[in-house]
Structures are given as C-alpha cells and as structure tokens.
C-alpha cells in the first residue's frame, strides 16, 4: 500500500485542492464528490430525517452539527449503508448509488468511524486496523509482519504510542478511539466520515488528528466531521451544515462566514409555538431528595443537588454527560461511592430499585423504553401493575385480575392511555402511549419522587405536548420530578430550575424563567 500518499507534498499549500495530487477519475465530471438529496427516514413515532441534504466536495472538511436527536447519526447511517432511506437519493460524482449494506458503501470509497465501540476484542491493534482486508503472504496465509508494519504506519501518522501487537483490551479509552480512527483512515476512502472522533481525546491528540485530516483534505479526500465540540468545528472545518429536527437549518455555510452564536442559533432554533402551561397553584414544599457531594461508580463526581416537593428540576447535558448514570445511581442500579443521599431529610442508602421504590418511594422512568422501561411482550395491565403485585395479592398470594384491572384502570384514564383494552400487548402501542404506561406504573406505586429520563424521545409533537401537561399536573399534585432531557425547548418549558451536566459533573445552575432564547443561550454557555 502506498503510504507515501499520506505524506504532504512539499509545495502543497493548505486549502488548495490541486488536481495533480488526486487519483485519476476524481471530480472528472465536475460534480461534487457526494450529494445527498431529500433524504427521509422514519422510525415508529418519529421522523428522524425529513428531507435532509448534504453536499461534499473533494478536498473539503465539512462539519455536521446539531443537537441530540437532530438526525446527524441517522444521516450518517444512511450514508454508510446501515439504514435504508425511504426517500431521497445519494449521488457520488453525479452517479446515483444505493447502499443496501455497509459493504456496498465501502466499495464506493466511504470510510466510516462509527460512534459506537467497534473494536474486536482479543485481537491485536494492528489486526483491528487492517481487519477489512488482511494482507496475505505465502500460501494465502495472513501476513502478520505486514499487518503490523502497515498498521505501524497508520499509528505513527496519528502519533499513537501503542504496540501494534498489543491486544486492544489493554488500551485506554483514548487509545482505543485513536485505533478506530486509524482504522477508518487506513481504508483510504475518498470520503471519510468521522462521528465524534475526539470525544475522549486529549487536546494534543486532537491537534495531531486535525493535522492528519488537513493533510488528507489537501490530497483531495472529502471529510465529514461530526462533533458536539463547536470550538473544534471552528478550528478544523471549511464549511458547516446544521441539522435540526431532521431538516437542514440554513444552507451549507463557509465557516468563516458564521460565528459561534450563529451556529448555536441554528442548532436550537426558536421554541416551537405551544400553548402556555397553566400557572401552578401549589407552591414548592420541603426538600425530598438531596444529593451532597455524591460520587458514583459510573463516573459522577461531586454532585450536589436538591429537589423539593412540587418542583421540576431539569438536568440538561449532551449525550454521555452522565445524567442517566446519575439517575441509575440514585435508584440503586449503579453504586454511590461517596457523599450523601438524603430522602425527605433522612440519610438514605439505596442499594436496589426495590428498596428505592418500597422504602424511599422513588421511581425512575427509563429513557430506554424498549429494553428497560417496559416489558414489551406483556399486556398493558401487567406493565402498570408490576410494581404493586405484592400489594394486590390476597392472603394466599392470589392476585385477582378483577382487582388488578380496577386498580390500573384509573391510571389508564388519568393518563389518557389509548389502547384497545387493558390486555393489549404494550409492544403494539404507539411510542407516546408506551411512555405513558411506563409513567403509570410508578404512579400506581405511589412514588413521591419521579426521575424521568428523556420522556419524549421518538414521540410526535402532539403527544409530546400531552406528556408535558401530564408532567406538569403531577408536580401540581405534589410530586418532585427530576427531568432529564436533551431537548432544549422541553427543558426550558417544564423545569423550574435547570442544572447543566458535563463529563459527570454539574457545571451550573439556571433559574428558569421560561424565556427560551435567554435560557438556551445560558445553557449553551455552560456546555460549549
């Protein structure tokens, strides 16, 4: 393999795309390297992509940014053959292409570093990098010397100080990430897609990576760079595309012509016009859940917060900020390793969900409805009554199904769960109704504190408003709610106070006056 190609030519100026360095055929017909037009992709209950567009030229680094759930990852997955779009077309150099499998995307020169962990355990670093086509030597046997020699080249390029022969299991997270980047680059694609490549890198490693990416750009590679870190986008990219709600927010813009605030404005947009929520009549009561300098086994550091009765505290942060982990530690799935947890003023040690529920009356509505929130194959009634079976049983341990239905029915009505019957399997309900079922089971259990994690992900706008009113009403009735959300308009609309988390720590607190533009700017200030 010609690694010399990677070495920048002496006279080559940054930013110039001299065709001399391009392999033959590139931009032959003057069309952009990649065009994606009118891409639509829906999942049950949500339109993830709604006519998104993207154009990438050879020798360009294009930033793709947007809030959580804006559709970036879905667009990338369409481009790399993991998802099939319902509508829209992908053109490479003006030729329409289809990618039924990731393999087909690779064949068209698309190299991708996915966001998820993607290394093969127990394999060496070098083999992980070269896995796609292991070089073969004599008798068609895998040639390890060549693997490690070639892998060494890619590792050196990124200045990664690990042995190519080392097992990936022995690497740090940053090193693993660098290996994944090396793997993507080693494919020598015409289009390089990097999804959050710098998430766990040090500034120095990031700078080295950027140097490599600039060199690749100068050789005519088109690069799509997906990142939450705006400062990196401004430091590296030539142009920027912002997605919001599955659509493009504004056209592709040269990075020089836009500033931070401009990007943030495009990302958050304006708050959707929704009905004002009614004034709450009940004031807030005493503190019911307090964390004092809590550390958790899952990476939470020195977290202090107070939740009062009749109050909604919002917890905002990017994906991976550690909010869900904090919730799991509070309810006893993960461990609290330091500090104190107080429930209604009394010190509490919560070791399991069972004790969180039975002893401290704390419930947790999981963000992951499918795998953690609900038992999809069971009927609605069981999914609500699961928390109270013991209370429903009579002396001989018998649960009367009449009593069970009678107990569940009021919650189904109060939450306006739309289902053909109480025996309907929850898997066949819509996302919004499923979410209401997972709320209902905690209400049935009579909790005082409810931690709600991403309540409206994947839920359509009407149901979303409905759920908001519901959460509002619960607080009115005296619950304390810790609302975890990555949906800025949602958190601004509902929360009384907003805490912003980043990398396992609470970075700041904002008293929310429900003024969207002001509050969202404040939140962004803590994050970016």
């Amino acid at each position: 393999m010609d690694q010399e190609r990677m070495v920048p030519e002496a006279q080559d100026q940054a930013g110039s795309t001299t065709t001399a360095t391009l392999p033959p055929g590139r931009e032959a017909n003057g069309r952009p390297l990649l065009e994606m037009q009118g891409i639509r992709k829906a999942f049950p209950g949500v339109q993830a992509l709604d006519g998104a567009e993207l154009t990438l030229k050879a020798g360009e680094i294009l930033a793709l940014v947007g809030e959580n759930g804006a559709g970036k990852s879905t667009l990338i997955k369409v481009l790399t053959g993991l998802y099939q779009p319902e509508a829209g077309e992908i053109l490479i150099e003006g030729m329409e292409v289809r990618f039924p499998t990731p393999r087909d995307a690779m064949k068209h020169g698309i190299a991708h570093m996915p966001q998820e962990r993607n290394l093969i355990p127990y394999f060496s670093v070098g083999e992980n990098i070269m896995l796609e086509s292991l070089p073969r030597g004599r008798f068609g046997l895998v040639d390890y010397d060549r693997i490690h020699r070639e892998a060494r080249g890619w590792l050196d390029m990124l200045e990664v100080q690990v042995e190519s022969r080392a097992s990936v299991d022995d690497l740090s997270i940053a090193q693993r990430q660098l290996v994944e980047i090396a793997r993507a680059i080693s494919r020598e694609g015409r289009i390089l897609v990097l999804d959050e490549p710098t998430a766990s890198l040090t500034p120095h490693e990031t700078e080295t990576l950027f140097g490599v990416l600039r060199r690749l750009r100068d050789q005519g590679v088109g690069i799509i760079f997906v990142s939450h870190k705006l400062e990196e986008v401004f430091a590296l990219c030539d142009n920027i595309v912002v997605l919001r709600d599955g659509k493009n927010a504004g056209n592709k813009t040269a990075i020089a012509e836009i500033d931070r605030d401009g990007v943030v404005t495009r990302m958050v947009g304006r708050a959707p016009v929704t009905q004002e929520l009614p004034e709450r009549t009940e004031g807030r009561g005493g503190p019911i859940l307090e964390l004092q300098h809590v550390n958790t086994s899952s990476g939470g550091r020195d977290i202090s917060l107070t939740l009062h009765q009749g109050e909604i505290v919002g917890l905002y942060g990017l994906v991976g900020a550690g909010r869900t982990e904090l919730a799991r530690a509070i309810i006893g799935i993960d461990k609290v390793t330091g500090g104190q947890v107080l429930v209604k003023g009394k010190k509490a040690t919560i070791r399991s969900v069972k004790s969180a529920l039975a002893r401290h009356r704390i419930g947790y509505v999981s963000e992951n409805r499918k795998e953690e929130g609900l038992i999809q194959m069971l009927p609605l009634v069981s999914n609500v009554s699961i928390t109270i079976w013991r209370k429903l049983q009579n002396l001989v341990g018998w649960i009367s199904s009449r009593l069970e239905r009678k107990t569940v029915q009021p919650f189904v009505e109060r939450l306006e769960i739309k289902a053909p019957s109480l025996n309907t399997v929850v898997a066949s309900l819509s996302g919004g109704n499923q979410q209401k079922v997972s709320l209902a089971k905690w209400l049935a259990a009579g909790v005082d504190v409810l931690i709600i994690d991403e309540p409206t992900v994947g839920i359509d706008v009407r149901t979303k408003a409905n759920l908001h009113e519901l959460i509002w009403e619960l607080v009115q009735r005296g619950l304390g709610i810790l609302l975890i959300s990555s949906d800025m308009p949602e958190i601004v609309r509902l929360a009384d106070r907003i805490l912003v988390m980043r990398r396992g720590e609470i970075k700041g607190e904002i008293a929310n006056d429900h003024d969207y533009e002001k509050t969202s700017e404040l939140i962004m200030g803590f994050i970016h």
Partner: protein
Amino acid sequence: MRLNLRSVVRAEAFVLFIVVLLGATALSLVSSQFLQTFNIYVLLYNVALSTLVAFGQMVVVATGGMNISLGAIGGLSAVVAAMLMEWHGWPLWLIIPVVLLGGTLMGFINGFLTVKTGISAFVITLAMASAYTGASMAITNANPIYGIYESVRSLGQARIGVFPWPAVATMVVMAGLATWFHRMTSGRQVLALGGNRTAAELTGVPIGRRVIQAHVISGLIASIAGFLTMARVQAGAPTIGNAWLLPGFAAIVIGGVLLEGGKITIVGVLLGVAILELIANALAISHTDPFFVTLLQGALVLVAVILGQARRRMMAKGRVRPLGALPSTEPRAE
C-alpha cells in the same frame, strides 16, 4: 512472534502447563504403574481422542454457539464406516472420504439451519443430535457392528513405544486449526464475529457463511474422532459419542475458551484435556469408582467457569468504563 519469559509466565496456558506437570510428577511418585509404557500409551491415546472432541466443540463455541450433536455425528460416522465395511465391503480409501464427507454434511446441516432460521445453535443441534443418533440406531438396530477390517483394527492398536499412531490425526487437526484460526482470513473472521458481531459485520465479514463454515469444520472433526474411536474399540457402536458433551465442554472451559465466543486457545484446550485425562488415569490406576470421572468433570466445569468469570471481573475493575458504551439518545429503529 518474539517470545519473552514474562509473557510466557503471564499466559493462561502456563498455569495449566504447571498443573499438568505437577500432576504428572505427583502421579509418577505415588504410583509405579503410571510411568509404565503401556499406561503412558493409553494416556496419550485418550488425550489424542478427547482433544479431537474438544476441538470439535471449540470451533463452534468460537462463533458464540455450541454443538450438542458432536457426539451424534461421531457415532453416526463410526456406524456408517463399520456398515460400509461389514455389509458392502468398500475399500478403505473410499470409506474414509465418504465418512469425512458425511461429517461435514451433518455439520453443514447444523450450520445452515442455525443461520437460516436464526434459532440458537443449542436448539438446532439438540434436535439434530436426536436425528443423527436415531439414524445410527436404525442402521445398526442398536447393536454394534463388529465386522471392521483388520487394517482398521491394527490402526487402532498401532503405536511406537508410547506414541499411538492415531494421534497423528489429532496433530494434523491441531495444526490445521492453528493455521485456520491464526493465519487464514476466514478463521480470523470467525473469531471476529464471535467477539463483536456488529463490528465484524461493519468490516464486511460474511457472518452467515462463516458460521456455517465453523459448523462444517466441527462436523468434520467429529467424524474423524468417531472413526478413530471405532478403530480403537474395534466396533461400529452407535453409542460412540454418547458421552462427549461434558468432557468436551470441560476441556474447553478449563483451557480458557470463552463460551461467549471470540476467544480460543488451542494449547489451552490440549492442556485442559491433559488435566482431565490425568485425573481419569489416576482414578483408573487406583481402581477408584469410574464415576468419579463424571463427578470431577462436572465440578471442574463449574470451577473453571467461575474462576474465569472472577478473573474477568477483576480485570474489568482495573479498567475505565468505555465512554462509547454510554447509551445514545438518537432515535433507534424500534
């Protein structure tokens, strides 16, 4: 690969090697019978046959599956070989390829059904095991076939000193597996898909084809083991392979193969078999109840997997939690 002392000592297989060494030393000190030529020959012979069985299981376990029908394939292969000898008088050069082809075919059926139906290998091979065993029983009417050729009988007895000739087959299979798993793309891909299926798929590994391939190789090894066992017991008994499941799994879990798939160790499995056979040999020498073998195999499975699990937990504790493993809130296909 460079060898340095530290990495050798750190290797899991090293511990097993020490255990084997200590066990053998202890046995030779305690019993004068142990080092007798015939006893060592029997021991090596047992190791050779059991290693084949363990390898047959290991190949499928590498994909994250398992092969319950391993013994049934071995039994049917033995029965078919004996049948072709006694009733049809086929020449040996024809019988052997036919038997091995039969083994690969049964492996193919297992793999094909597993891949095409998406049902776990456990259920498929459990069901197919009864079909294969039923076929052996039907052929033999549940009685062993004794009319096997003299050449095969003498193969079953052939040895130079302590070395049993059939062990050559084990060595060939061992070399073949080492080459396949470590030096051939398809073998590497089998391990890759066992370790991280999604990642393997993303790098273009043809998952279905590789899973079938592993089952085919497993079937082939089972038929070799069946044929050699037949040569040893001098009869094509349908019961050959009846008791292959427990010792096969015992050897691979002691050897350090991961049942979730993705990690194999050929030397480890060989040493695992050696440990099991040393125990069996010790029991035989001391005329202890042979059922202790079953008991100990079962106990060793438990000890090996629980120790393995504890070790992995300790190693996991020493590491940071990978950030990439945090849940994403992007909409997922539901």
